[in-house]
Structures are given as C-alpha cells and as structure tokens.
C-alpha cells in the first residue's frame, strides 16, 4: 500500500464541526436537542422531527461491519490506481447510526460482515479522516 489517498470534503457550515473534530481525533455525530435523535450525516435540522436545535455527541468509535467491498478498479483513475485494492465498509456504530467509511490495515482484505471495527484518524494531506480498522471482539 502506498500512502493513503482521500478526496478532501467540502464542508458546509453545518458539517464543518464534524470534520474539525476528526482533525482533533474525535468522532462527533449530531443529536437533536428536542427529540434526542442521533443521526448521520450532519444537517441543519433533525431529519426525524425537523427541529433545528442540534448538539453534538462524542461517539465511542466502535462498531460492526454491516457490509463491505474490496475495490479493484480506480473509477477516477490517476492516483487512485495506487490504492488498489482498497476496502469500503458500511459501519453500524455502537450507538446506532450507520456510516460509510474505508477499512484500512493489513488484515482489511479478510474482513467479514459483523466483524468489530474501531475508528482511526489517519492524517492525509491537510486533514484527518475517520477510517476504521478491525478490532478485537468485545
């Protein structure tokens, strides 16, 4: 594996706190101050009750793999050729919401659905990204 590659996000005012927290090594998800709904991805309102009064909850960063795919084609070509194969995962966080991420580490190719994973924050260019690694069970 060459150096990790990531396309930088273009955050909005609503999502910037998520990415800024990643740069500090924290995973923050938005939580509705009215109905308590914890959700992904950040928006300016709660998608369950519509309320704009939101706060942030620090996540444990632990979860399990809902699904995964090992990618063998660089659809955007160029520098992505050097990332192949890489693994994309859907992670069910311990607190509930599901997020899409990338699974890294030497044992990523052997991942199975249901495997425990935990968040890591590799520095790639100017930012740190909430990727995951396989974790010991329990």
């Amino acid at each position, binding site marked *: 594996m060459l150096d990790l590659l990531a396309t930088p996000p273009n955050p909005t005012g609503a999502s910037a706190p998520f990415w800024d927290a990643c740069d500090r090594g924290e995973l923050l998800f938005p939580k509705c101050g009215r109905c308590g709904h914890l959700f992904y991805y950040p928006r300016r309102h709660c998608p369950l009750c519509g309320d704009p009064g939101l706060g942030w909850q620090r996540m444990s960063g632990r979860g399990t793999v809902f699904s995964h795919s090992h990618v063998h084609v660089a659809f955007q070509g160029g520098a992505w050729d050097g990332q192949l194969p890489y693994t994309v995962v*859907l992670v069910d966080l311990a607190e509930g919401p599901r*997020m899409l991420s990338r699974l890294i580490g030497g044992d990523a190719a052997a991942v199975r659905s249901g495997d425990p994973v935990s968040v890591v924050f590799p520095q790639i260019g100017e930012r740190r990204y909430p990727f995951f690694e396989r974790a010991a069970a329990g």
Partner: protein
Amino acid sequence: MPAVGSDVVIAGIGETPVGRLPGWSPVEIQAAAVLAALRDAGFALSDLDGLINLDPYATPNSMFSSTLAEHLGVAPRFACTVDVGGTVTGMTMLQQAVWAIESGYCDVAACVYGENALTGRPAGAQGLHMHNLLGGEEWEEPFGLHGMVIPYALLAQRYLDLYGATDADLAAVALVTRRHALLNDNAQMRKPMTLEDYRASRLISSPLRLFDCSLVSDGGGALVLTRAGRAPQGRGRGVAIRAIGMKTTHNSVALMPDIPGLGMAAAGADAYEAAGMGPEDIQIANLHDAFTISVLVSLEALGFARPGEGGALVRSGAMDLGGRWPLNPHGGLLSQAHIGGMLHITEAVRQLRGEAGRRQVEGARRALVSGNGGIFSVCGAMILEKP
C-alpha cells in the same frame, strides 16, 4: 393511483441502434428516436405538441427539452426535462405525458432519452462517466466511494450475507439476460456466456464482477403517447399504462434501508393495488438490471420470489423465454444496452403488441417494468397491458 382508467396509451415506440454511434451527438440520438416513434404511431412531426426528455449523464445540459424541440423543429405547448433515476425517469416521463394529455396541454407527447455514454466518455474513464453530482459526495468521496458499482457491491455483499446466497445466484441473472440478448439483433453483447465465463470475468468491486455490471452504451429510446384511437397507426396497437407505483427512501448508500425495507416493495404494492393485480397476472418481467443484484432484490420485493429465493427462481428457468415470467427478453441493461431503461419500456410495448419476432413471449397480456435509480434510492413499478 396514477394512470388507472386513463384512455391515454403508448401509441408508438422508437429505438436507435445501440452500442457505438460515433459521430452522433446526444440531441441527434434523441431526435432520431422520437422520429422513429412518431413514424411507428403514424404521426407527422407537426403533430407533436408535447416533449419530455432527460439530458445526457455524460454531458449534462440544462434546458434540454428546448434543445431537442428546436433540433427536431417543433414548438410544443408542453415540454420538460425529467431526472428521477434509472427507469423511474421513464415512468415519470410517461406519468407527465398522461397528465399533460388528460389536462389538455397537448394531444401527442413524446418521451425520450438517449446519449453517447460510450463513445462520448473521456479516454481512460472506467464505467459510466457521470459529470452530474449525486449529492452525497462529502460523505462518500473521502472514503473512496466513486461511481455506482461500489454501492451496489455493498448491497450485493449484504444480500449474500443475509440470505446465504452465492455467486451462482448473481450469475444466473447475467446468464439469462445474455441468452435473451442473443435473440436481439440490436444488442451489444452477441456472444454466449457460460458460468465459467462469468466466473472468469474480472472482479470490479467484490462481490461484483464485470459480468454483474450493465453496459455503457450509445443509443436512444422514445415513446409516443396519445388518446386511444387517435394515432393513425394506433388502432388496436395502443398499450395501456395500468398503474405506476413509486417510492423514494434515501439517496446515499449509508442511509439505504436494509433489503426487506427497500422502496421497491412499496412501489410494487402500490402498482399491484392500483391495477387490482398481483405477480400471477404478469407474463413479462422487464426488471431494471443495472447490476445482477438489482434483479434478485426486485424479484423478491415484487413478489415473484420469496426473500432469498430470487436466484433459485432464475436458475429454475422461470425467467427464461418459455418460462413463467421471462426476464428482459431484449437482453436488458446487462446484455442489450443501458439506455436508462427506456428500452425496457419499448420492449414491453413490442411484446404486448405481439411484434417481438423470435423472442416473442406467447400469450403475453401484461408486462411489469421495474426501475430503480441511485442505490434503490428511488424505485418504480409499472404495469402495462395489451390492447
């Protein structure tokens, strides 16, 4: 429910050659498909007063309905461009045409999509090269999710895990659509495929291989609608739209419901209820097959198979010509061409008229056309009936 009881029918169909059309622009392709559909219905160009299209994915254009109207040489009273996703775009075009005709905005409406997605893509691009943003980029691109194959691979892996299905289930869909494409002179894939061929095709994004993925195509398809009996060539040939069901549940794969909750089940239930029918009333299944997994999920959501048993149904021969529910007799997106699903609709009309030649489904009275755009983000089910 949409279109039930309407006397607006599909009176004409038009298709261009598919595959590589070097030297053709998207608007030229769409115009050729519209002219073919007008000829099929017996209308003159000057009869056309409604025009609904989708602009090309590879080279997005704003205001593409007026681009096409000018290029054709018509001045319609009703024109719009519709972008919903997958074959649901085609269904929404039909819905708009029915409403426009019923409400008196126009008498003869054309619905069309076509482009040069194959010859028009940049050198070195892989798969369908889409210039459009889909809205989830901030939460997908940093993690390496590019294009449509990877999200469908995540869905396919979930399907395999949930039901204990195997690559033989996915392969069965690729094989039956290829068998059917061999009977279609206007199909990109004309060589037989075996299970060994399928397994030898390269992994794109596990578990999906090249032969799990639909084609990238140049080509166009068009439908002409008018009131029953209005078309000069339409008597006894107009195909009725009995029902259209639709459901939108999400956009990006991270927010996709688990398989039993995908919107196809709700879309199908609405269509069946509106038509007063069920799978037992259907003789042709033109299911959106952008990927093999799409067909397995749709078969189960639409009641053709029980959950997890879609692959077994396909392997049983039920979806072959001569079986209970022939699947995509034209070869589908997997083996004929990917024209946004417009050819699923033109093929259903051709079959219901009894004009499909050596791939004719005997005794076909009703066809179910399914569509899904995004990652089953928007789902549609439509029932068409012979005159």
